[in-house]
């Protein structure tokens, strides 16, 4: 079975600043990593491959340097890596991103076999929208399974899959037909270390690189900034609060006296609270 995992390369954590003049995000010098949520998707794909046989292809749309992340994924044990890279993709919002990734997935299907399962992470740590997975599913007509905590059953011959999905207030057990798009919940597995063989293979592997044209995209108006209905109007740092904190004096007081004055100050801030607490502690 052929499985594709979509992975995004993201800037590491919150070491991001805005340029004070242009208000653009300064990514230079910030180290990049594989979006941490995507590693849960990758591990799940590798486990399915180990159990059922087949191949795992990882796919990234991004700048040429995203090759690093793909090579890293190969060291974990992925079999093939595809980098979709073209200046026409710059400035893509989620609609344009899902368009480009869907085109690449269709091309992957032609070249290396149609994947019955496409994985994405739950969301990224930079854009953080969780919209790309559902976007790909809709564009390719895949059955959509989001926030999957567990793949309970998968029968490639019958073409069926059963999963446990995190829903509001509980877990849904869903069954559907392949092909599917699965967005994997975080914390459900742990990425393997990968073998020494994988490391050697990754170092020498050729990463498949496709431009928009290579991926069969003819309508460039659907790509990048032009293909993005959302427009980022401005980026700015959160406002500091005008009001200053009121410090409860702590010098030369016992812990008990301090507790008493903190309680008094709380009631001063929230005059209604004392009565409400009284009613609560008196019970129904």
């Amino acid at each position: 079975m052929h499985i594709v995992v979509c992975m995004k390369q993201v800037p590491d954590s919150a070491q991001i600043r805005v340029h004070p003049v242009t208000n653009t995000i300064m990514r230079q010098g910030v180290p990049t990593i594989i979006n941490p949520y995507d590693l849960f998707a990758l591990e799940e794909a590798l486990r399915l491959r180990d159990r059922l046989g087949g191949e795992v292809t990882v796919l990234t749309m991004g700048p040429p340097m995203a090759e690093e992340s793909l090579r890293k994924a190969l060291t974990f044990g992925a079999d093939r890596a595809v980098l979709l890279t073209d200046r026409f993709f710059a400035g893509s919002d989620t609609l344009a991103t899902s368009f480009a990734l869907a085109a690449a997935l269709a091309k992957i299907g032609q070249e290396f076999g149609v994947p019955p399962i496409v994985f994405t992470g739950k969301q990224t740590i930079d854009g953080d929208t969780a919209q790309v997975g559902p976007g790909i599913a809709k564009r390719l007509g895949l059955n959509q399974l989001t926030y999957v905590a567990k793949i309970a059953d998968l029968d490639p011959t019958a073409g069926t899959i059963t999963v446990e999905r995190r829903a509001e207030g509980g877990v849904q057990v869903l069954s559907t037909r392949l092909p599917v798009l699965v967005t994997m919940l975080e914390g459900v597995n742990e990425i393997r270390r990968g073998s020494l063989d994988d490391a050697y293979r990754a170092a020498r592997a050729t990463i498949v690189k496709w431009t928009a044209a290579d991926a069969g995209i003819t309508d460039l108006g659907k790509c990048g900034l032009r293909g993005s209905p959302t427009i980022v109007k401005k980026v700015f740092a959160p406002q500091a609060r005008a009001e200053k904190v009121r410090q409860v004096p702590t010098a030369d007081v016992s812990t008990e006296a301090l507790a008493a004055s903190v309680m008094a100050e709380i009631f001063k801030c929230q005059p209604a609270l004392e009565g409400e607490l009284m009613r609560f502690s008196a019970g129904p």
Partner: protein
Amino acid sequence: TKRELPEHFKAYKHVWVVVECEHGVVHPVALELLGEGRKLADKRGVELAGVVLCGDDLTAALVAAACFEHGADLVYTVTDPVLAHYRNEPYTRAMTDLVNTHKPEILLLGATNLGRDLAGSVATTLLTGLTADCTELAIDDEGSLAATRPTFGGSLLCTIMTLNYRPQMATVRPRVLAMPARQIGRWGRVVVHPLNLAEDDIITKVLRFVADRESDKAQLAYADIVVAGGLGLRSAENFQLVRALAEVLGGDYGGSRPLVQKGWISADRQIGQTGKTIRPKLYIAAGISGAIQHRVGVEGADTIVAINTDPNAQIFDFAHLGVVADAIELLPALTEAFRAHLSVNRLAG
């Protein structure tokens, strides 16, 4: 850049809120959105509609009533047994049908698992823009929706607009917007919309729904009083001091992200950007430094009390009341002070 809105989009009017009501319970985020939607609709001089997708007529009627009482002028209902449990396919179908028929200019959803799953599909089907996880919604001078959202873990904010496509879509996190007051007896119009789908047409089946055990469910997001701890507490054992204070106050408890990573608390008790947003009347943070990712989850609290040994801790930049003290000593004393005060006054009262 704004162009002349294409002709076929000019008919798009009104503000819609998708009212999540799985298992017959209205998700509070929908009411919060109606409160905000009311302001947007008034600013635009248009109507506010709730959209109710559910499995039976009784639920539809009850949920519609809640919509009117929280500001809706009208409610679109799509009632069909296939909508009883959330599934992407029939919900996306119902939503896109409704939008194509009645043409809203603004479409808002809660940034819940349901809302995010549905919004992504609807926006892609309609080929329009969708802004995720907003914390602020406004109408700009030209009448467009300006949706502001935190990004890069809350260290930055950005304002995003969908100028040349309709509807303008956004999801908003629970507890970020204020809950509007309920106006009892307020009423409006109901517009019933059919769903021409049979169960056999739908590929995905819900085999079971396993509700979370009541005791496991952190009601954190909606608690009036929340006490939380951070790494300053130094051990899982000391974290019990947080629970004890929460218990005396009849509140709920939570913590910063590192406590989840250390296994001191479960993931559903994490407060902040990648955890829960809370909006209590009283928030007490003990041994929490106040990193931006934590801050964005608690800023909506009416009163923030910070206990921290470091007078320069970031949390004092946004707390209302600061106490430079050792939380491990102060927490039990505070618990005792509240306990004594409440029991004395109970006897007196």
